């Protein structure tokens, strides 16, 4: 499937808005939180995005933003006359009071620890995640340090 055709198809999905081509091989779109799981399933099954590159959580004060990067490795989407592979960047906005979203780790195993990290450092809860524990910080650590309102003491030496 050529990338322009792919972009047209994307717009027809429920909850998808602002589909844009931000580089010659990267498609960016915004997605509603409720329709995310259906969209991710079709992203994997229909369009062949085999690889979950990154899930990053951003504290936009007040709401949270989740940015998913998926990439094609041997999939069916291509760019004409170019060896470049296609990536997709998906933005999902979450309310600060309810930072929950459905997990995609059953679709991409590689997303498993990215979700754990987002939970660990940003406090986003992934529903249906098999093993949502802290991954980088020790168990019992108070707070989620990558949030902008996290306050910590800096050990500054006296000079």
């Amino acid at each position, binding site marked *: 499937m050529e990338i322009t055709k792919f972009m047209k198809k994307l717009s027809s999905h429920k909850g998808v808005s602002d589909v844009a081509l931000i580089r010659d091989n990267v498609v960016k779109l915004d997605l509603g939180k409720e329709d995310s799981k259906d969209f991710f399933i079709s992203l994997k099954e229909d369009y062949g995005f085999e690889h979950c590159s990154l899930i990053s959580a951003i504290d936009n004060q007040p709401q949270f933003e989740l940015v998913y990067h998926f990439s094609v490795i041997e999939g069916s989407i291509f760019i004409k006359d170019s060896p470049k592979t296609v990536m997709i960047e998906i933005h999902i906005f979450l309310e600060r009071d309810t930072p929950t979203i459905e997990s995609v780790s059953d679709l991409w195993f590689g997303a498993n620890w990215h979700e754990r990290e987002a939970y660990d450092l940003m406090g986003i809860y992934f529903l249906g995640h098999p093993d949502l524990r802290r991954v980088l*910080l*020790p168990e019992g650590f108070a707070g989620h*340090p990558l949030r902008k309102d*996290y306050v*910590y003491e*800096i*050990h*500054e*030496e006296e000079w």
Partner: protein
Amino acid sequence: MSSKRIGGNPSLRRGLGSKTTDSEKIMEDPPAGDWLALRSDQFLKWIDNAVYNAAEATGMREVVDRVTRPIFNYAQRFSPHPLHFGIMCCAIEMGQASAPDHDIDRLGLVYRSSPRQCDVLIVNGPVCEKLRPKLKTLYEQMPEPKWVVAMGECAISGGPYWDSYSVVAGADTFMPVDVYIPGCPVRPEALMHGFLTLQKKIREKEPGLFLRR
């Protein structure tokens, strides 16, 4: 920030985390009246004390110390076996130091994987909050006499990670450090110099006595 070596002094050592057990308490104060009630380990301790006191009284201790101390000191300072333990960048340079170009084996350094068989703990990177208890365990697993080398800026003071929420400000905040090797990362030559400095330190501060360790 104290870089004082605490290894040899039992009272300070105890403050570092090894707790005084009940049997030790009994040992310090042997029951004067009922010798027969001594357990075998208490008895050995008592014998040890008796021999020590006798040696002390006759002046034998000084003679034995005078001869054995330099020999043991010589052996200790020329065979420092570090723990095979890497934290960050400096660990790579530590490995590179044993490569043919620098060959730290010339100084008799053999990396042992088990803390039980080591003399030197090289802290070669930032100590994070999650690592700190483990590092302390490693230190306590090592047999006396033991030394700690803080290798690189991170281990000395936190280095580039001074404003991090999870990095401890230097290894000496929770364990005694003998030698600091600055550098980010430490070059292999600097590591060698650090070990020569450690030798110098061991030589100047003679280790524990022979009869009572």
